[in-house]
């Protein structure tokens, strides 16, 4: 009886401690992890050395969940959903799985489509290869294109540099990195941040088109 009591006391003590430290506890791939409120699943995973691939994510700018390579499966109360880990806040008690069939299916298709749409990007080819995607079944319309339209350059120019020299123009399949009014931007201070953050090496081609010399 006393053993039971101590067990219970221990548990309640543990629960109290958990409540007090304000940490959120859940599992990633079966591994127990802790996170602070407001963290995303991706941040927590990286903190714990769990790899989730990303393309449009950069720690210096706000994530927008564009590329969807970072999708994970979140299971809770018997329900499961696929969510982009870079924008999904942590939640206590959930089970996150980073490599389920559903997740890999999204990732592989995204990479295969990227191979057709930004075939000139060496970085994307490498990333795809890491995930076993080496060829694409889709039409390559612009062999010289390297830009995945993730908007990381635009966000960095806005949030980090504070200049807003470039923007995303058009929409849907016609989306492109451009400068306001499709003119080469006079606002650009040629700091090179966009060149640095671009995950696909596309800015090298695009920079002369959007920045006034």
């Amino acid at each position, binding site marked *: 009886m006393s053993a039971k009591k101590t067990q219970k006391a221990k548990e309640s003590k543990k629960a109290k401690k958990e409540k007090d430290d304000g940490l959120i506890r859940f599992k990633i791939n079966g591994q127990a992890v802790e996170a602070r409120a407001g963290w995303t699943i991706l941040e927590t995973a990286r903190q714990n050395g769990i790899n989730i691939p990303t393309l449009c994510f950069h720690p210096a700018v706000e994530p927008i*969940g564009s590329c*969807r390579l970072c999708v994970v499966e979140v299971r809770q109360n018997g329900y499961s959903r696929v969510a982009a880990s870079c924008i999904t806040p942590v939640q206590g008690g959930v089970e996150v799985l980073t490599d389920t069939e559903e997740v890999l299916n999204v990732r592989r298709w*995204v990479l295969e489509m990227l191979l057709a749409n930004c075939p000139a990007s060496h970085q994307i080819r490498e990333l795809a290869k890491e995930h076993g995607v080496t060829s694409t079944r889709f039409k390559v319309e612009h062999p010289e294109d390297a830009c995945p339209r993730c908007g990381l350059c635009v966000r960095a120019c806005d949030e980090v540099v504070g200049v807003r020299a470039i923007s995303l123009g058009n929409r*849907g399949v016609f989306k492109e990195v451009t400068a306001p009014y499709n003119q080469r931007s006079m606002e650009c201070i040629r700091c090179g941040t966009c060149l640095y953050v671009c995950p696909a090496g596309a800015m090298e081609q695009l920079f002369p088109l959007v920045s006034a010399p």
Partner: protein
Amino acid sequence: MERISNVAKLEALRESLHAAHDPERPVVRVCLGPGCLALGANKVSRAFQAAIKAKGMGASVQPLIKETGCHGFCSQGTLVNVDPFNLFYVKVKPDDVEEIVETTLANGQAVERLLYSDNGNRYRSASEVPFYKMQQKVVLKNVGVIDPLKIEDALMAGAYRSLAKVLTGMTPDKVIATVEASGLRGRGGGGFPTGRKWRIAAENIRKNPGAVYVVGNGDEGDPGAFMDRTLMEGDPHAVLEGMIIGGYALGAHQGYIYVRMEYPLAIKNLGVAIEQARALGLLGENILGTGFNFDIRINRGAGAFVCGEETALIASLEGQVGEPIPRPPYPAEKGLWDRPTIINNVETWANVPLIMEKGADWYAGLGVPTSTGTKIFSLVGKLKNTGMIEVPMGISLGRIVEEIGGGVPGQDWFKAVQTGGPSGGCVPYELKDTPVDYDSLSQVGSIMGSGGMIVMDKRDCVVDVARYFLHFLEEESCGKCLPCRLGLKSMQEYLDKFAKGQGSPQDIDDLHSLARAIMKGSLCALGGTAPNPILTTVKYFKDEYLAHVVEKKCPAGVCRDLITYSIDPEACNGCGLCVRNCPQDCISGEKKKAHSIDVSACIRCGQCMDVCPVDAVLVA
């Protein structure tokens, strides 16, 4: 009219309006809904004015011509209802007006030839017509009855009675509890319980006091859908009243209605309704003298389909690019200008006054337990009767198509029904007993959506249909997330291949896998539901996909690369109509003898088939 300073005066005004109305006075209601307008309904209305003037009917009681919203039975437009004779005229042309004035208005007789007839039966009044008989008009009860540009008309029909009741006798909490108890679910497509949404917002406001906003979503962009449009055009006060009640429940002082620019009449009618409600003190400062302030502004959408998605709509309202942002946080927590915001479809808002007036129990008694109330659908496609309908939730799909829609002309079955617009699914004939409610539709892989219903027959090819919807969504994708921006285009590549008879059965499975990836991986509901037409058609019509890629045939005779036209020499009577209509001049034959088509020059446009009076043109 004077500003109304308290509830008693509102009722007094209503009574004086009723007292001034002579029930014997003839009323001609001309449908000015979008369908009838396109057929020249305003000419009919003007003809009535002129004919009555010419007849000099001032001596007897002058008939009243009302230009109303949509009557619903669009395939029979222009529609005219004449009271108190309770006569329902269909396909009225300006030339028919004089006869109606002479026979009906002057002598009280029916113009037999303009009455609706079907299967040898002639129907005098609308309520007898099968198309209307099966319906249950609750939300639409005033649409087609009142003149939307006259608030007096709406007041006589009971508008703002619920508002008065709420403002004087119900606490905000009671309003939310009533909506919760009614079981009302969002009519924009998601089907989220409206009361719960309000409750969440109310709690967020308590935690984080400050401004709150109320938004009406009238950005209806689905091809073949016109429910919200009809409602905003035909009974704008119902939408306004619902929003004011919502504003009261949440302590909001500002509301916005987001209407797409392509609905100029809806914008005009809503604008007039807002002006008139403001003038009467039903909107604006100190509503009905209760001290409650609430105003509504109209925001015109620039035509992007994705702005119907709530977070994209809010971005657009703020003046930003109309792109969705990830949820959570939901707008009920952080919406317009980062403040708690309640955003509901305009049809949802129009349900609110009814719930307040008749009570949650009455509302919950309509429809089925998990999907209460009624739902408006636009019933279009290969049907005898097309138009806008309102039915209780839970009615079977087959009954809607066969009993209200009158079935497919000349065929005793339909192939499938696309519910929920371009991002809905194709429900095949075998599942015609599926009840139309949120959960049953999602079980068969489709969605309720905002209420579009497109009926297909054996001449519709599922590959072609899926291609059509996908093409629409591809053009409307905002391009923010990759699965949607590239995925819709990539799925289209597969379908284009199938339509040309290329590809293999493996490609069909690959397409299915890609569709699932897009469904799971997309940022917002546009991408998340875009694969529905493909997932459902592959599920229910896999044979037809296989026919395209294996046999290189399009069983429905639609995909141009897979079909050939020919003329049945037995059936052809040699009339030459096809010869005259062929744009390629590739049909030849002597008069009164069987014709033939030169297949090498034929572009498979199908015009010969459409014009042939004896159905001698075959497609295979």
